[in-house]
C-alpha cells in the first residue's frame, strides 16, 4: 500500500493563485521541552568540564530540526558529536596557547595569535557554513555550501566595506544574504535569496529612528530637569535627587527605544530573508506581519534580559515555532520538490567551534 508524496500537498485556498501548491511547514516541538533539554544538557556539560558540549549542541540542534516538519517530513542535523569534539579540542589548544601568552605576557605570541585569528576569521566562518549546511538534512538529502574560499573572502570584505557606511548597511545585508543563498544547495537543488531592499531599509530606518528618538528624549529630560551647568551647581539636595531619578528614568526609556528599534530591524531582516527564499522553484512565504514579529522579538529580548538569559532557549524555540507555523512553501504546478543527494564529503568542525568561541554561530539567523 503506497502513495506518492505529492498527496501531502494541500490545494491552495486562494483561487487566484490556483497554479501553485502550498507545502506546509510546522514546528511540532514545545518550547518548554526544549528548555528542559537545554538545561539537562547544560548540567551535563558543566559536570564534564565542557567535554560533553558537542553532544549538547547536536542534541539542541536535533530537537529544533527534528520537530520542524516540511511537508510532514522532519529536518535533521546529522553531525556526529565526536567530530565537533575534535574541532573543539583543536580550538581549545589555540585558546590554551593564547592563555599561555597572556600568563607569560608574551605580547609577541599574543599578537601573532590575535592577528592570525583576524586573518583566518573568514576562513573559519567559511568552514563553519560548510559544516553547518553539510550536516543539515531534509527528506534524506543533505544541504551543502559551495562558495569557494576566495569568493567567501571577497564577500566578507565587501560586506565589511559596505557596512562601514550607515546608508549602505542594508545593501551590505542584502548582498550578503543573497551570496549565502545562491551558494547553498539542497542536494542538486539550489537555494536563492532575493531579500527585499525595501524591507531591509525599513527595518534599519526604524532602528536608527528609534535610537535617535530615544536619545533625543533622554537629552530633553536631562535638559528640562537639570538645566544648564550654572543651574545644576545651584541645585538643592532634593533637586539633585529628582535629577538623578530623571536620568535613570530617561536611560530606561532610552533602553526601551533601543530594544524596540533593534526588534524592528531584526523582524524586517528575517522577513526580508525568509520571504525572499527559494528552494529550487518553491518559494517560502511568511504569513506573520513584520510589526507582529517585531513585538515577538521585543518580548523575547525583554524576558531574556529579565531572566538573565535563563529563559532564552524557551523564548527562542517559541519564536521559531511562531515563524515556522506561519510559513509555507509555494510550489508552481508541474514542479516537484525532489532533490538528489550530492556527495560533498566530510567537513571539519574547527570553523564552527572557533567562531562559536567568539559568540558567532551559523543558525537560523533568528536569534540574537
Amino acid at each position, binding site marked *: *500500500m*503506497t*502513495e506518492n*508524496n505529492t498527496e501531502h500537498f494541500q490545494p491552495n485556498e486562494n483561487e487566484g493563485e490556483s497554479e501553485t501548491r502550498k507545502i506546509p511547514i510546522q514546528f*511540532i*516541538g*514545545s518550547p518548554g*521541552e*526544549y528548555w*528542559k*533539554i537545554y*538545561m*539537562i544538557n*547544560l*548540567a*551535563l*556539560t*558543566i*559536570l564534564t*568540564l*565542557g567535554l560533553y*558540549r558537542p553532544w549538547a549542541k547536536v*542534541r*539542541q540542534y*536535533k*530537537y529544533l530540526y*527534528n*520537530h520542524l*516538519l516540511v511537508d*510532514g*517530513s*522532519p529536518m*535533521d542535523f*546529522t553531525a556526529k558529536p565526536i567530530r565537533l569534539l575534535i574541532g*573543539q579540542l583543536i580550538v*581549545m589548544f589555540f*585558546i*590554551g596557547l*593564547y*592563555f599561555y601568552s*597572556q*600568563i*607569560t*605576557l*608574551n*605580547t609577541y605570541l599574543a599578537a601573532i595569535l590575535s592577528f592570525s585569528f583576524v586573518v583566518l576569521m573568514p576562513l573559519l566562518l567559511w568552514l563553519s557554513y560548510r559544516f553547518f549546511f553539510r550536516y543539515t538534512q*531534509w*527528506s*534524506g*538529502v543533505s544541504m551543502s555550501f559551495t562558495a569557494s574560499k576566495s569568493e567567501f573572502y571577497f564577500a566578507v570584505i565587501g560586506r565589511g566595506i559596505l557596512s562601514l557606511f550607515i546608508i549602505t548597511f542594508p545593501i551590505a545585508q542584502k548582498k550578503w544574504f543573497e551570496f549565502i543563498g545562491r551558494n547553498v544547495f539542497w*542536494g542538486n537543488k539550489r537555494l536563492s535569496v532575493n531579500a527585499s531592499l525595501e524591507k531591509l531599509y525599513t527595518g534599519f530606518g526604524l532602528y536608527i529612528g528609534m535610537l535617535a528618538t530615544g536619545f533625543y528624549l533622554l537629552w530633553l529630560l536631562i535638559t528640562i530637569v537639570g538645566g544648564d551647568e550654572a543651574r545644576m551647581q545651584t541645585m538643592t539636595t532634593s533637586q539633585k535627587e529628582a535629577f538623578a531619578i530623571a536620568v535613570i528614568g530617561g536611560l530606561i526609556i532610552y533602553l526601551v527605544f533601543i530594544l524596540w528599534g533593534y526588534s524592528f530591524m531584526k523582524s524586517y531582516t528575517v522577513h526580508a530573508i525568509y520571504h525572499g527564499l527559494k528552494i529550487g522553484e518553491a518559494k517560502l512565504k511568511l504569513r506573520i506581519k513584520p510589526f507582529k514579529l517585531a513585538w515577538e522579538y521585543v518580548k523575547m529580548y525583554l524576558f531574556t534580559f529579565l531572566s538573565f538569559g535563563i529563559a532564552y532557549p524557551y523564548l527562542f524555540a517559541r519564536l521559531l515555532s511562531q515563524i515556522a507555523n506561519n510559513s509555507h512553501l509555494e510550489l508552481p504546478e508541474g514542479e516537484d*520538490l*525532489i*532533490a*538528489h*543527494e550530492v556527495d560533498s564529503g566530510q567537513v571539519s568542525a574547527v570553523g564552527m567551534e572557533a567562531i*562559536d*568561541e*567568539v*559568540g558567532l554561530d551559523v543558525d537560523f539567523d533568528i536569534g540574537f
Partner: protein
Amino acid sequence: MFKGQLIKAGSSERTTVFVTVEKGVLKLSNGENHSVEAVSVEDRTGANSPFIIHLPTKEQLIITENVKEFGKEFYKHLPVYKRNWLHRFETWGKSLVVSIIVLIAAIAFWLTKGSDIVAGWITNRISYDLEYELGKSIIAGFKSLGWHIMEPTNYKEQRLEERFYVLANQAGIENAHLYIVHNFDMPNAFAVPGGFIVFTSKMVEDYMSQEDGLEALSGVVAHELGHIKHRHSLKALIRSALIASIFTMLTGDVSVVSLGMAQQMLNLAYSREQEEEADAYAIELIIKSDIDPDPFFQLMQELKEKYDIDEIPEFLRSHPHMSERINKMRELMKKYEEQY
C-alpha cells in the same frame, strides 16, 4: 500499524508506508522486512520526536505520528545496549529537577574542590624546569608592563637577599630568586611560579630599618617559600586559567582569556588551605633555621592593625583571619619546638 514515510536512497522521493513491529522485525507495507537490530535510529530528543530510521537498504523510514506507541513497540524488541539512554533520561519526568540540582552542585564543585583537584593534577605533571621558564617569562612580562622590578641593589635589600638564600637552601629550593618591585606604595610580597619571590621596596624599606626587621621579613620569605615549595602559585594560575577556559567553553566568550592574568598575580587567590599550608611550612622553616618567629608575628599583627584586613567578612576572604593565623602558628611553633 503505524503510518510512515519511506525515503529512497540518494533522493528525497518519498512514499507512504504502513509499518508494524512483530517479533523484532519491522514489517513494511511495501513488502520489506528488516530486523530491528539491523537498522539504526537517529538520536531522538523530546517525547514526540519523529523516528528517523536508517534501513540496511540505505533508505530512510520516518515515523512522525503516534511516535510514543511506535517507540514502545520498537524498543521492546531492541537489546538494552542499543536503546538511547540519554533520550530516556531527557524524557523522564524528574530529569529537570535532577539536572538543576546537578547543575548547581557541579558549578559549586568545580569552582571549589573540582578545579583545585584538576589544577593539582596538571601541576604535578609540569616539570620544575618548565615552571622555572614560566616564572622567568612572568618576571620579563612585569618588566614589559613598565614595572621597576630588579634584583636587590641597596644594602638593606642585599641583606634580605642573603637571608633569602639561606632559607631557600634550607628549603631545598634550587634556582630561587629574589626581586624587588619599586612601583607600589604598599608593603607586600608574593611568589611567582618557578622559585621567584617579589617584595615591594616599601616592605623592605619599612621593616629592614627596624631592629629585628630581618627576622620579621624572614618569616615572610619562609611563608612565600612555602607557596613555592608546594607550587601554590602555579596551581592557582592553572586553576584560574581552568575556570576561565570552562567559562569560555560554556559561554563562547573568549574575552575572559584577556583578563591580563599576569597583572593579577598580586591578587591571585590562594585557597585558605594553601595559606595555612604555607604558614605551617614557614614556621617549620624558621625554627629549623634558628630564627626567632616573634618579629614575624608582630609584623603580621602590625599589618592587620594598619590595613584592617580582618574587617573583610569571613566568606569573602581567601586568607584566614590574621589573628587566627597567628594563633595557629604559635601552636605549631610549640609543637615544633618540642619536636626539634
